[in-house]
Each structure stands twice: as structure tokens, then as C-alpha cells.
């Protein structure tokens, strides 16, 4: 006990290293990365530095969590630096803006820190292997360094987000992770997944960035309202002041905050960026767009729990948004063919679960699902990345050994740049036959060629589908049980149906990817990944299995952990709810077997659901045409307005008439007549020329003094001495 006391008091001061460790890592890689990469061991060094930086953040997180535990769960605020102090709160009207960089270390933030840095470190390690192959596939090995710099930057920004002590510090991290997301989605900004010249990825990055900005506007307005009403951004000040504020104001603040959450956590109506964000490398999809960044919205609502619990109306809106998103995205996931797109919609759906949970006030259930989801969704994404790499290897193998005709531009030319690459695509003459390693219709039978990945993927699937006793079962069930008990009947049924779809699309994916016969030669020749890729997956798989133990019914470990920070109520285990959801999940898996497993898909065959569901499946396949709808309603009108502004207002009115006629005309008159003729020629020129003439005359007479005789110069010196001495005497 002496040890725990002496240690616990010291660890809080380590909090700034949460941010500085990754920043240090990224600086090392920025400065020395290029030098590393010129050497054979360079990639390992870059990856190790980045992983160690992230690992250091994890160690710090663990020490902080221990400190929180040892201090009785209360945590501490660690002041680091003064950001800005405007005004003095103690004098005058008391209006002041006091902002400090303070780390809030409590049970909620340390939970997020552990997830971010823990999963983050595993993904860093995975990325060492993944990016090694990816940069070679895309033929630009210099970007290896940049990837890890961005990844460390993301960890640093995410740590600022979760450790902020005020809404503004949280917003700094919020924007920081948004930037990293943009940078990493557009990591291969000038080529598509196959390495062909294309701007699709950078467009996806822009879409994510701009959609998030819409959400951030909502968050900003919430922040402005907050400061206007409470004169502070600090969590504690705001929460205390909010209790005596008018409920209408709190509703406004919480709903505007929900807009921000919808942007960052991909909820209706701003979820559209997340599926496109899969354009980033797979570790990015796993880390940023599944496990950590997108859960920032859930964290924000949990953090703002004291605000939300004041206004049940807002809570209801949040819960319904989450539940609707959960079901809506789950249906889209059923109709997707890209292995990562399915997971992307699954992520949106699961985020819907979490948002619904925190909306209902079940903050513990939401955070619990956040943690377990981070484990199994990261596992699924990384395994999907392993599958894609396996197929690429198989394809590469084909292209080199001549089994059949290579169906994409050859990968043999090293160092080909984008222009050359597109030229090759044109030369090959079969652009429609290009092989897509992410398309599930090209897979099949991978169970035999990639056994390790298969088992890992299966564990992730079972955890996501909510099968007992995997992690997902416990967390999802807690959300459903809370919805049931709290009387959110609508939310409960939406989520239950979404859970059914979840199990169904995951079953479909398993059958399509790993069972049946290979539908493409590349799948037949797929190779298993290296340990650097599979070992982090095994750790995640282990966590996906046992993660549920965090908050087992009856024990409530996690509930007790969080109760010091946010208001909690111990979720009770409802047997009927658990039975219904498990039965539905099992039923969904059986149905998926009946459709996809019993009669495996053949190459070129359309999806078996297409015929019976007809239009419904077309909708799912095409994401319910939401993107097209947004384009018709927002984008096209936006472009129309922009064109009107550009052509009519800017060009014809401002440029042709106002600038050319009014401004330029007046300016010409002023400059030609008034200024040039009178002011310049007769005024300034005359003066300047006269000055020049005068200088010439004076210098001509002074020139005689410069006679070249050193003795007369000495005489001048003596004259000076005499004069100065005389002046001193007469003074």
C-alpha cells in the first residue's frame, strides 16, 4: 500500500507525454526518416520508431489509469501551459477568456487513452508489414516514412482530443484528427487502389474533410453558445453553470453538438464520407475510421453527459439518430461487394449503436461497446487488409509465373510514375478486366490458402455478430437491455433488427470470402501474411474474445470504473433480451448460410438476393442512392449557384462593369490627368531633378578637397581636433 501511494501521486505529471511521445516519434521520422530509408533496415527503423512512440503513449496511459485507480477513481487535472488569457475575471464585468492546456485524467479519458494508444500501437506494428508491401505495390517507396509520420500525428491529436480539459482543447484535437484523417484517406492521392493514376482517393479525402467541416460548424456553434451563456469552455464550469441555465439553451447546445457528432462519428445525415474513407490504406481504416477517431463523437456525448441528462428531448433525438443510423447502414452493408465497404457500413451501424446508447443515457454501455468495437472492428479491418494483401500476392505470383493471363497492368516495372502507369493501363487495352483485390466476388475459398487470417476473421465476425461469449455479445446486449428497460421501445426494435442484419452481412461475408471455390485465379494463389501482420491480429483477437469480461453482468467492473466521472446506472442483465438477440443473430447466420454457404457463388454470377428482393436489393447495392440524392439536392444546386455567382455576378457585374468601367475608368483619369501631369511631372519631378542638379554642383566644388595628398588629409584631422577641443573648452 505504501508503494501504491508513493507511485500514484507521481504519475499524473506524466500526462503531457501522451502527446509529446508521438510528437517525438514523428519528429524523429521527419528528420531522420529519409536517411533511414536509404538503408536496408530503414523501413523497420521508421516503423519501430513510430510504434515505440505510440507504445510509450500506451505505457503512459496505463500508468495514468493506474494512478486514477489508486487515487480512488477521481483523477486529476494536469496543467501544462497557458494558452490564452484575455481579460481578468476578478475585475470589472468578470468577462474573461481563460484557456489553458490542461490534461484531464479521469476514468473516462484514461479509458479512451488506453484504447487509442493500445489499438494504435498494434496497428502501428501491423502497418510495418502492411505498408512494406503496399508501397511496393504502388511503386512509391518514399511514402513509407510519410505514412508513419501521419500515424503518429494522429495519435498525438487523438490524445489531445481525449485528454482536453475544456471544449476548446477537445476541439483542437477534434480538428487535428480530422486533418490526419484527410491526409491518410488521401495518402495515395494520385492513384487508386491498383496504383493507376486517378484522383478518386483525393476526392474521397476532400469529401471526408468537407463533410466533417459541416459537422464541425455545428460543434463550433455549440461552443459559441456555451461561451456566450457560461463564459467558459471548461468542462466543470460549463456543467455547473448548465444546471441553472434555461433548458431551451441546453437543448440548442446539445443538438448543435449532435451535428458535430454526426459528422465525426458518421451518423445520419453526415455519414456519407466514411465509406469513401476506405480509400485510405487498411491500417488507417482500422485505426481512424473504425477503432478510434470516429468514436470521438461518442466520447464527446459521454463527456457532455451532465448536459445531455438535463434535457431528455435532446437525448431522444440523439438516441433515434443513432438507432436509425444503425439500421440504415446495416441494410446497405448487405448489398456491398467490397470487403472494406461492408466493414465501413458495419462501422457506421455500430457507431449508431453507441450513439443510441449514450443518447439514452446508457453512457457505460456506449463506452463499453466503444471499447469492444475498437477491438473487433480493428481486427476485422486488419484481417481484411491481410486478405487483400494475400490476393495481391496471388495476383503478383500469377503475373510473374504466367499462370493464365495477367489481368492488370504488370507490376514488374519498378519506379514507374503515375503518367507511365496510366499509359500502361491504356496500352493493356482491357481496363474493364482490371483485377480488384478488395472485391469479394473475386475471392472465395480463402479458408484453405489463408488459414490464420480465416480464423482471426471468424473471431472478429462472431464478436461483431454478438455471439456468446465474445466481447460484442456483452456490450451490444447491454445497450439493448438498457433500451428495453428505459422504455425506448422504438430504439430497442430498430437496434434489434440492426443486430439481425449485422449477423447476416457478416455471415454473407464469411461465406463469400472464405468458403466455396476461388472465383479468381488470384484467390487460388493467395498467400498467407507474415507474422508482423498476423501477430498484432492475434492480440486483437484475444481481446475480442475476452473483452466482454470488462463489464460482465453482476460484476460491473467498467461501471464502477466510470462512475466517478459520469453519472451511471448499473445495467441489469435481461435474459429475454439476450435470448432474442442471440437467437436472431444465429438465425441470421443460418439464413446467410442457406443463401451464400450452401450454394457458393460462382464466378460472374450475380448476388443470389438480387432476384428475390428486386428493387430492394438494388437500393442496398447502391446505398439507397443517398450519394446521388445529396448530389441532386445539394451539390448540383451548389454548383448552379456557384456558376451564377461566377459568371453573372463576378464576371459580368463585378469585372466587366464595376471594375472595368467604374474603378479602372476613375483610376485612369486620376493617374493620367491629375497625378501624372500635375502632381508628378510638375511637382515631384521638378523637385527631384532640381535636387539632383544641386547635388552635382555641390559635389563638384567639394571634389577639390579630395586632392590625394595624405598631408592635407592629416591637416583636416588636426583641424577637427582643434575645433572639437575648442568647443569643449568654450562649452
Amino acid at each position, binding site marked *: 500500500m505504501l508503494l501504491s501511494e508513493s507511485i500514484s501521486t507521481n504519475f499524473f505529471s506524466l500526462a503531457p507525454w501522451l502527446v509529446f511521445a508521438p510528437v517525438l516519434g514523428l519528429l524523429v521520422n521527419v528528420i531522420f526518416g529519409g536517411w533511414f530509408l536509404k538503408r536496408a533496415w530503414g523501413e523497420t527503423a521508421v516503423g519501430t520508431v513510430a510504434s515505440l512512440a505510440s507504445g510509450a503513449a500506451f505505457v503512459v496511459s496505463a500508468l495514468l489509469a493506474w494512478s486514477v485507480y489508486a487515487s480512488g477513481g477521481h483523477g486529476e487535472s494536469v496543467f501544462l501551459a497557458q494558452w490564452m488569457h484575455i481579460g481578468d475575471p476578478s475585475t470589472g464585468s468578470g468577462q474573461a477568456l481563460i484557456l489553458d492546456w490542461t490534461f484531464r485524467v479521469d476514468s473516462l479519458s484514461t479509458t479512451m487513452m488506453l484504447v487509442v494508444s493500445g489499438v494504435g500501437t498494434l496497428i502501428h506494428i501491423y502497418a510495418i508489414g502492411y505498408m512494406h508491401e503496399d508501397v511496393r505495390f504502388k511503386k512509391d517507396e518514399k511514402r513509407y516514412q510519410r505514412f508513419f509520420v501521419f500515424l503518429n500525428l494522429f495519435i498525438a491529436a487523438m490524445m489531445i482530443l481525449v485528454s482536453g480539459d475544456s471544449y476548446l482543447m477537445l476541439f483542437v484535437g477534434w480538428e487535428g484528427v480530422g486533418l490526419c484523417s484527410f491526409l491518410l484517406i488521401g495518402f495515395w492521392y494520385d492513384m487508386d487502389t491498383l496504383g493507376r493514376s486517378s484522383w478518386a482517393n483525393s476526392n474521397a479525402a476532400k469529401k471526408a474533410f468537407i463533410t466533417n467541416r459541416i459537422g464541425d460548424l455545428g460543434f463550433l456553434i455549440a461552443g459559441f453558445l456555451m461561451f456566450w451563456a457560461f463564459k467558459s469552455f471548461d468542462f466543470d464550469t460549463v456543467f455547473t453553470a448548465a444546471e441553472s441555465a434555461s433548458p431551451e439553451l441546453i437543448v440548442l447546445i446539445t443538438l448543435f453538438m449532435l451535428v458535430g457528432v454526426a459528422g465525426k462519428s458518421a451518423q445520419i445525415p453526415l455519414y456519407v464520407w466514411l465509406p469513401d474513407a476506405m480509400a485510405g490504406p487498411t491500417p488507417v481504416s482500422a485505426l481512424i475510421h473504425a477503432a478510434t477517431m470516429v468514436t470521438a463523437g461518442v466520447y464527446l456525448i459521454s463527456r457532455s453527459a451532465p448536459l445531455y441528462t438535463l434535457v431528455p428531448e435532446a437525448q431522444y433525438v440523439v438516441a433515434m439518430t443513432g438507432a436509425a443510423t444503425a439500421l440504415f447502414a446495416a441494410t446497405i452493408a448487405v448489398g456491398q461487394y467490397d470487403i472494406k465497404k461492408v466493414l465501413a457500413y458495419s462501422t457506421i451501424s455500430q457507431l449508431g449503436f453507441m450513439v443510441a446508447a449514450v443518447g439514452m443515457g446508457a453512457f457505460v454501455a456506449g463506452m463499453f461497446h466503444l471499447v469492444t468495437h475498437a477491438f473487433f472492428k480493428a481486427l476485422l479491418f486488419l484481417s481484411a487488409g491481410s486478405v487483400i494483401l494475400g490476393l495481391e500476392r496471388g495476383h503478383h505470383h500469377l503475373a510473374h509465373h504466367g499462370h493464365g493471363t495477367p489481368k492488370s497492368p504488370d507490376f514488374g516495372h519498378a519506379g514507374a510514375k503515375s503518367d507511365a502507369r496510366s499509359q500502361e493501363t491504356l496500352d493493356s487495352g482491357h481496363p474493364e478486366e482490371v483485377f480488384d483485390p478488395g472485391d469479394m466476388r473475386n475471392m472465395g475459398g480463402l479458408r484453405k490458402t489463408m488459414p490464420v487470417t480465416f480464423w482471426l476473421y471468424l473471431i472478429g465476425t462472431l464478436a461483431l455478430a454478438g455471439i456468446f461469449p465474445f466481447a460484442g455479445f456483452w456490450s451490444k446486449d447491454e445497450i439493448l437491455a438498457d433500451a428495453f428497460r428505459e422504455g425506448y421501445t422504438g430504439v430497442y426494435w430498430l437496434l434489434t433488427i440492426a443486430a439481425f442484419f449485422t449477423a447476416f452481412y457478416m455471415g454473407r461475408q464469411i461465406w463469400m470470402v472464405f468458403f466455396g471455390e476461388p472465383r479468381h485465379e488470384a484467390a487460388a494463389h493467395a498467400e498467407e501474411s507474415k507474422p508482423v501482420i498476423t501477430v498484432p491480429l492475434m492480440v486483437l483477437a484475444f481481446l475480442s474474445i475476452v473483452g466482454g469480461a470488462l463489464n460482465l453482468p453482476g460484476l460491473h467492473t467498467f461501471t464502477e470504473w466510470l462512475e466517478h466521472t459520469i453519472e451511471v446506472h448499473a445495467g441489469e442483465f435481461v435474459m429475454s433480451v439476450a435470448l432474442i438477440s442471440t437467437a436472431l443473430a444465429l438465425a441470421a447466420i443460418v439464413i446467410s448460410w442457406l443463401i451464400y454457404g450452401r450454394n457458393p457463388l460462382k464466378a460472374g454470377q450475380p448476388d443470389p438476393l438480387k432476384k428475390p428482393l428486386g428493387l430492394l436489393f438494388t437500393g442496398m447495392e447502391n446505398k439507397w442512392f443517398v450519394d446521388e440524392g445529396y448530389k441532386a439536392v445539394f451539390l448540383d444546386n451548389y454548383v448552379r449557384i456557384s456558376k451564377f455567382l461566377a459568371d453573372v455576378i463576378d464576371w459580368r457585374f463585378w469585372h466587366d462593369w464595376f471594375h472595368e468601367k467604374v474603378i479602372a475608368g476613375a483610376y485612369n483619369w486620376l493617374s493620367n490627368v491629375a497625378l501624372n501631369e500635375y502632381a508628378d511631372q510638375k511637382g515631384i519631378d521638378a523637385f527631384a531633378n532640381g535636387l539632383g542638379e544641386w547635388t552635382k554642383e555641390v559635389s563638384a566644388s567639394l571634389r577639390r578637397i579630395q586632392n590625394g*595628398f595624405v598631408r592635407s588629409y592629416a*591637416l583636416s584631422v*588636426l*583641424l577637427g*581636433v*582643434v575645433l572639437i577641443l575648442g568647443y569643449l*573648452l568654450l562649452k
Partner: protein
Amino acid sequence: MTVDLILFLILALVAVATAAGMLFSRNAVYSALFLVLNFASIAVFYLLLGAPFIAMAQITVYAGAIMVLFLFVIMLLGAEQLAPIKVLPWQRPLAIGLAAVLVAETAYLLILRAKPAADIIPPAETVNTLGELQRLGMALFNQYLLPFEVTSILLLVAMVGAIVLTKREKGERE
């Protein structure tokens, strides 16, 4: 009229006379010899002022080394006398006038503006003792060590500079 004062006046007369001799000698060799005499009389002043070390340095370095160097160069160049040409007619009268003004100013400054000697309280410890040379050495090698070392470098540089300046370049004909 103490003995000191009589001695001073005689030596001052010698100093001014030799300086004038240097100034007005047509022959550069005479000028140099007058200057040696002048330096010697100043060395005696140093002795009178209780600075025996400086007096010896004056004799050896100035009257000895430096003036020998001057004589050597005068003989080497063989330019004891210059052809009388008038280039700057106003130079000489102007110089004499300015010099007169300078002397007047300085004398005025020293005699009328200077602090009366009575106001100066000399420290109890006097430097005019046998131990003075030792103290000079201590001060030179402790307090003034850095300037001393810098001076040695300066002498080295001067030596190198003199050699470089007078060295005959390769291929240069005399």
C-alpha cells in the same frame, strides 16, 4: 627652485630643442639622431617620475631598436634629402597656425581647468619603491595577462607582415 625643478627645466629644454632639431633638419639622418636624443631625455623623465622599468624599455626599444631600424632604412634607401618641390603652398602656414592653436588650447585646458594638485590624495602605498617592479610584473601577468598575450600575437603578425611586404616575389626583377 628645487633641484628637481632645475633638472626638469634643463631636460625639458633638451627635449624641446631636440624635437625642433628633428623637425627642421634637412637631412633625415640628423633628424633620426635628434630623435634618439629626445627619447633619451624622455627616458630620464621616466626615471624622475619613478618608472625605472619604463625608462629602460624606452632606452632599449625606442632609442635602441626602433631608431636603429630607422637609420638602417634611411641608409638603405639612400634618401636623406628630397628635391625641393612645392606642391601644397598653404600646407605649412596652416599647419603652424593650427599647431599654435592646439598648444594654446591644451595649455589653457591644463593650467586653468585642471584640478589643483592639492585635491589629489595619493594612496598610502606608494609605487616609488623597490618593490614596484615586482608589482608591475604581477599586474602585467595577472590582471593584464590577456592584453599581454594579444600583444605577443600582434608582434608576431607584424613580423610576418614585414616579411611579406618586403619579400621579393618570384620572378620579380629589382
